[in-house]
């Protein structure tokens, strides 16, 4: 107990100047709040809920550090203090273990501590057949290829991300606080010779109560009901959404939607997002970033040549957001094209080249995948053959080898499949895998820069790391050159200019550093507008995360903004406009907001610390990546993605000691005894007060 008077004054201070301190000093003596935690949250689609949740007041359990398989028996059967809160290294976070825990009532929750070493046998919590039900293959389209019948793309996938856990699961950064947890465990909970530890025991409480439940249909219905009836409306879930980024070599008038006469475009696409088991932890180095970096570098390599010798067809770069969740971005763009809500429509699309996972080719082949079903059509087959030949000839000039897998193999999971659903357009998917993914950590925590072999020599400063040309950068710049040249020929460009198209390894190196190691670097900040920097900067402290998430107030996810502005700088022209002209270009002759986007860019910081800002005109635009299902209000749609993320109030974790039931009962016993004794004694004294205090006129404790 703290000194009496001190506490009194303390309390009154709170009531006088409340919000002075948020929690009481007693609470500080009991709990250690854990800061670096990431929860697993609940996501819902048309039919299911996945993820985790705690009860509304948090789930508490006695801490048990999972150190070997033997601990599982202790947790699930032998341990005398259930429920247990299991703390485990990421190595033990496997499907068999988690499923046994899921089916046990003796587990209150799980905290997974990050580890730097990935399991060598591979780990992917994703499905074996990603986006199985939203791709092109199904009953009516290549039924023999549906459900990965022909090729299992992610054979290591164990489906853990798609399980529904009734207890909270948290991810903890391995830092000082995990040391505190271990210390608390060792001090209080360690078994001595297999006998149970004594009270007080170290326990942990996890809060991640989710508001939405059952499926998207239910939660959207309840949200709508709440909004129409309740006095205090509360949203339960929000659709996953963000923005696609697109740009074209020749500007397209964005004020006119629908079909464009005399316009034929070659689409170069890649995906912009990934995921992992936990919320907003998705480094997705091979899964996503390899494609983003390749396409950005290719766009930069193409730009000067396309200005000098414009190919007959337009080239349309696009980065699709939300592809990990049943192709949100691409399905929306296709939907918009079909309904004349986009700058071009399907008739304008000549062909498509998609960059898949290309970071792990390790000097060996690249593979170009195409769709066997649409190739049964001879005209499509002819076009595809032409594309393949083009690409192979470009590759041979670059001393790369590009091959086709067997002609009966389906397309890997790709945005292209959503275009094929609409129309059999010719197209290719470039990837580093022939059949199953080379990526052994698809959509997992371990798909890290280290897995992409992005390693820097020690003792480099961050600025030197930014410039350092790693092997990964060299490899990806080769791929980017291949992509750029193939796109140029695909767009009908003349072969004589091909040798002028080469991706810059330095740029690839800088892109890799920015997208995988640290987005807060001098190069990224020089390419962004000033309002994106400074306070509330979109440049986070570490590596960007690629989980799509949701936008509540029409903001744009930071990764999308990076891609938008980098693309603008790489495919744009610097204009000599001042800031106000740049923000309102319609007032300037010869400039049109309909054709171009204008961005005021901070520019590199010079030696004396001042930045030279400038205005960039480019054809880069954002387009909504919100599933059409939410536009059409078809929350049970089988056609479109219906993924929503539940809302929540508190996410938190804390550790503390729990007292033995004996001590608690003793406290209650003493309390009851004190109460009864005092009642009896008081009654006795007050009834005998006359007698006891009779020497004075009247007694102090009598009733009169």
């Amino acid at each position, binding site marked *: 107990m703290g000194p009496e008077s001190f506490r009194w004054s303390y309390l009154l201070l709170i009531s006088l100047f409340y919000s002075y301190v948020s929690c009481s000093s007693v609470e500080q003596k009991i709990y250690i709040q854990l800061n670096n935690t990431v929860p697993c949250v609940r996501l819902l689609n048309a039919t299911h809920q996945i993820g985790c949740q705690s009860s*509304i007041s948090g789930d508490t359990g006695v801490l048990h550090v999972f150190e070997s398989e033997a601990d599982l028996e202790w947790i699930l059967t032998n341990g005398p203090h259930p429920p247990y809160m299991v703390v485990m290294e990421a190595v033990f976070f496997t499907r068999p273990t988690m499923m046994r825990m899921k089916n046990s009532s003796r587990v209150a929750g799980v905290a997974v501590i990050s580890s730097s070493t990935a399991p060598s046998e591979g780990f992917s919590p994703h499905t074996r057949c990603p986006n199985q039900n939203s791709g092109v293959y199904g009953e009516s389209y290549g039924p023999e290829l549906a459900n990965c019948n022909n090729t299992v793309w992610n054979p290591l996938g164990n489906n853990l991300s798609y399980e529904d856990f009734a207890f909270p699961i948290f991810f903890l950064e391995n830092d000082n606080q995990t040391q505190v947890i271990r210390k608390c465990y060792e001090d209080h909970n360690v078994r001595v010779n297999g006998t149970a530890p004594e009270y007080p025991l170290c326990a942990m409480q996890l809060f991640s*109560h989710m*508001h*939405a439940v059952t499926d998207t249909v239910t939660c959207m219905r*309840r949200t709508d*009901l709440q909004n129409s009836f309740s006095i205090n409306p509360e949203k*339960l879930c929000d659709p996953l959404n963000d923005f696609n980024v697109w740009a074209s070599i020749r500007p397209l008038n964005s004020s006119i939607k629908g079909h464009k006469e005399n316009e034929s475009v070659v689409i170069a696409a890649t995906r912009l997002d990934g995921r992992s088991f936990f919320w907003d932890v998705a480094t997705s180095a091979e899964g996503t970033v390899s494609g983003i970096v390749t396409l950005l570098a290719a766009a930069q390599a193409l730009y000067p040549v396309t200005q000098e010798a414009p190919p007959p067809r337009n080239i349309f770069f696009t980065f699709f957001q939300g592809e990990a969740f049943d192709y949100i971005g691409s399905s929306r763009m296709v939907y918009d094209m079909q309904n004349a809500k986009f700058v071009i429509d399907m008739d304008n699309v000549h062909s498509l080249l998609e960059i898949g996972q290309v970071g792990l080719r390790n000097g060996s082949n690249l593979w170009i995948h195409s769709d066997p079903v649409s190739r049964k059509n001879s005209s499509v087959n002819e076009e595809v053959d032409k594309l393949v030949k083009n690409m192979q000839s470009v590759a041979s000039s670059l001393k790369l080898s590009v091959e086709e897998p067997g002609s009966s193999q389906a397309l890997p999971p790709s945005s292209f499949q959503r275009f094929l659903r609409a129309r059999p357009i010719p197209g290719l998917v470039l990837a580093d895998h022939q059949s199953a993914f080379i990526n052994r950590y698809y959509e997992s925590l371990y798909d890290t820069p280290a897995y992409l072999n992005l390693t820097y020599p020690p003792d480099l400063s961050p600025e030197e790391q930014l410039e350092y040309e790693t092997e990964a950068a060299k490899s990806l710049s080769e791929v980017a050159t291949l992509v750029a040249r193939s796109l140029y020929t695909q767009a009908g460009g003349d072969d004589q200019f091909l040798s002028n198209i080469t991706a810059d390894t330095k740029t690839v190196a800088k892109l890799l550093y920015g997208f995988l190691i640290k987005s807060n670097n001098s190069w990224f900040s020089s390419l962004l507008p000033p309002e994106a920097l400074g306070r509330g900067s979109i440049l986070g402290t570490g590596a960007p995360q690629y989980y799509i998430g949701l936008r509540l107030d029409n903001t744009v996810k930071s990764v999308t903004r990076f891609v938008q502005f980098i693309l603008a700088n790489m495919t744009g022209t610097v204009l000599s406009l001042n800031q106000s002209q740049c923000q309102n270009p319609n007032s300037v002759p010869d400039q049109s907001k309909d054709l171009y986007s204008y961005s005021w860019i901070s520019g590199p910081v010079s030696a004396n610390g001042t930045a030279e800002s400038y205005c960039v005109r480019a054809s880069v635009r954002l387009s909504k990546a919100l599933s059409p299902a939410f536009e059409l209000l078809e929350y049970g749609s089988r056609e479109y993605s219906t993924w929503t993320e539940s809302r929540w109030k508190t996410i938190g974790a804390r550790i503390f000691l729990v007292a033995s039931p004996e001590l608690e009962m003793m406290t209650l016993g003493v309390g009851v005894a004190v109460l009864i004794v005092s009642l009896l004694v008081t009654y006795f004294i007050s009834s005998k007060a006359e007698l006891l205090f009779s020497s004075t006129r009247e007694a102090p404790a009598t009733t009169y």
Partner: protein
Amino acid sequence: MNLERIPNEEKLSLCRKYYLGGFAFLPFLWLVNCVWFFKEAFVKPAYTEQPQIKTYVKRSALGLLLWVTVLTTWICIFQHFRAQWGEVADYISFTIPLGTP
């Protein structure tokens, strides 16, 4: 109001008002009637208006009992089957608990 201080005729009219008021879907009036007039009806020595008060109190109690049974049954059924009914249950709910089916 102290029942001790008012004349018997007024007691009767008061009891009657409460009894009739209960029919306007206000079972709590019946509850109040039962509690408030219990002594008057069953404990006090007999007086002219007592038999009538007694009837009103008894009927109020009966009505109250009916309400309690009906409500209890409905609440039990609703709570038990709410998740099962899905959409229908959501439409007839005023507040829906967060995070439960």
